[in-house]
């Protein structure tokens, strides 16, 4: 028998039934639920007279619509409030393993709270009605974003209908240069293979650089697998994985933990496993990344310049660049370092974990100055209440506030601007989030995706700067 990839192993261990054409029923271990993509699913269940199959698989929170300040006043927007209250009512009626509602101390972004509570474990299948569910693959689990019909399907049957995808290995080897982070790896990969490069594939991230990343860093990389088109990203389990999970509230305890950990350590691709595609990156060559356009693949480095469409020979690509530059209000050949920004957003399921906040705070302290006068707002939005508390215990909030940043309550916030945190038309933002699509952070808003360190430095200087110079 030939070797199997991690994805093959995860797939094989969850097949309940397979149709003749290969469409399989996959058993789902963990179902993460939030307020935006679940109301229609609960409604569907009710209309059909169905009950959730296994509510102890459900961990839920409200994150997309929740405000990030003035919590005492509740949710001002009645439509947002209705959505959050609908989730409250649905969970109250049908139950869950855990629910972290608006203003709960453990509330936060669904992809932050799952792992930090130990609700995401190696070997699991994890689904959520959110494309960034790929994040959880950092724990050697098969985790995919699903639509609302699939949310309803999982609630009703504990299974998902899936077709097995191909295997892709992204191998990153070598020492990441100072100032470069997991976010720069993710953007460099997308720059190399494109936003559709991973379509139809599950991506395993491997190599010495990935092995050396913390769980937070691995989550950042897997989070953006979807931005490369892959529904699932994953990293093999190792001692870093096991150490992270030990003592987490929903992780197994005592002897059961050791038994589980022994199994988790088998969740690696076999040495002779075959991948349909292998992409290799040398970490030593990675530089701080900055996107200039309206798709994450429109990315360059801090040393780069805005591209000139006239130099692009492919007409479709040229048109894409031209359209993006008009939207972004950028002139060809502008140096990235000369791009001035209006707002800064440090947060999102990509970069709102403690390590991200530490990196940003370190840069702020190192530069020793306040947010540049031209910056209208620079906000730091922790990924969860627990991250917020941890950051405050380390005094990071004081570093940010003293420098003129706003220290907010947890939530998805300006990553997708469903709450009041948004860009106004024409405003330009250095953002640690994952998507620079037109209108993503507010109608007419202009997003540049960067790492937390790069965003913090841009806030202080008012334009993009090379954080490697802070060494």
């Amino acid at each position: 028998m030939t070797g199997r990839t991690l994805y093959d192993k995860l797939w094989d261990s969850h097949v309940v039934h397979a149709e003749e054409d290969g469409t399989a029923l996959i058993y789902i271990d963990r179902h993460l639920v939030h307020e935006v993509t679940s109301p229609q699913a609960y409604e569907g269940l009710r209309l059909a007279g169905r009950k959730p199959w296994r509510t102890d698989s459900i961990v839920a929170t409200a994150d997309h619509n929740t405000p990030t300040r003035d919590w005492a006043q509740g949710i001002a927007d009645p439509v947002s409030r209705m959505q959050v209250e609908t989730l409250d009512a649905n969970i109250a009626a049908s139950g869950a393993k855990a629910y972290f509602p608006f203003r709960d101390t453990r509330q936060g972004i669904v992809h932050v709270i799952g792992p930090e509570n130990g609700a995401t474990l190696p070997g699991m299948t994890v689904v959520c009605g959110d494309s960034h569910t790929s994040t959880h693959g950092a724990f050697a689990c098969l985790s995919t974003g699903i639509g609302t019909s699939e949310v309803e399907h999982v609630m009703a049957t504990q299974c998902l209908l899936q077709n097995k995808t191909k295997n892709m290995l992204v191998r990153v080897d070598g020492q990441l240069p100072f100032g470069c982070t997991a976010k720069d790896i993710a953007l460099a990969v997308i720059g190399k293979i494109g936003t559709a490069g991973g379509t139809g594939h599950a991506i395993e991230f491997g190599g010495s650089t990935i092995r050396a990343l913390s769980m937070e860093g691995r989550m950042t990389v897997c989070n953006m697998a979807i931005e490369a088109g892959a529904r699932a990203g994953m990293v093999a389990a190792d001692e870093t994985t096991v150490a992270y999970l030990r003592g987490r509230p929903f992780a197994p305890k005592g002897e059961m933990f050791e038994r589980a950990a022994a199994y988790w350590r088998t969740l690696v691709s076999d040495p002779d496993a075959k991948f349909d595609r292998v992409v290799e990156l040398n970490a030593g060559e990675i530089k701080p990344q900055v996107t200039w356009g309206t798709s994450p693949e429109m990315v360059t480095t801090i040393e780069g310049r805005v591209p000139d469409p006239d130099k692009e020979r492919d007409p479709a690509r040229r048109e894409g660049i031209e359209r993006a530059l008009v939207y972004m209000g950028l002139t060809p050949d502008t140096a990235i370092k000369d791009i001035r920004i209006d707002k800064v957003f440090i947060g999102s399921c990509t970069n709102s974990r403690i390590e991200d906040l530490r990196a940003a705070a370190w840069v702020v302290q190192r530069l020793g100055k306040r947010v540049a006068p031209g910056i209208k707002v620079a906000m730091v939005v922790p990924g969860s209440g627990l991250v917020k508390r941890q950051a405050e215990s380390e005094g990071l909030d004081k570093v940010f506030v003293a420098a003129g940043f706003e220290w907010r309550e947890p939530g998805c916030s300006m990553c997708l601007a469903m709450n009041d945190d948004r860009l106004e038309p024409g405003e330009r933002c250095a953002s640690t989030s994952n998507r620079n699509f037109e209108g993503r952070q507010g109608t007419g808003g202009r997003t540049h995706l960067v790492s937390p360190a790069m965003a913090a430095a841009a806030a202080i200087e008012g334009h993009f700067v090379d954080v490697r110079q802070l060494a």
Partner: protein
Amino acid sequence: MKSFVVHTGLVAPLDRANVDTDAIIPKQFLKSIKRSGFGPNLFDAWRYLDKGEPGMDNTRRPLNPDFVLNAERYRGASVLLARKNFGCGSSREHAPWALDDYGFRCVIAPSFADIFFANCFKNGLLPLVLTESKMDRLFAEAAAFPGYRLTIDLPRQRVVKPDGEEWEFDVDPFRKDCLLNGWDDIGLTLRHADKIRAFEMARRAEQPWLFG
């Protein structure tokens, strides 16, 4: 779910690559707790000149005359031509709901993002893949001939052009059956309820830490 068997309809061309689900239905419209009513906000930021918010009377908003779906000749289109990686980004099923609510029954593109592709099948909307060169021909013909219509014959897996030429397309047999019959996935899956229970029991015995 409504079935899809044979559909003939007016074709509208959306000539840009990497159309993401934020563009298909912007986030401010995701606050609804219903599945319907998203059609008037399909491609909202491109379709209207003002900034769209939930609760606006969309019939009174200024239309962007340069956006293809606003052209008189494409009114009532039910087949959308698109470019590569259509539906990338967010998993929001509101995207196929909006396309369906607007009146589209089929989207034809050289490639789709995976989650969007799966979501379409749950809503009786057929995402159909043709090669780049065939797409180029459809875009050219749709532009050249006002009133250009295509027939999508799912049982025979053929796109039938007005000149009688027929192009074959692929579709997973299981998904095809579901679309042809308008089957509810959940009902189908629950036929295997005993198998699911047996799988679950074995899993509980092997990895008890996953339960409770």
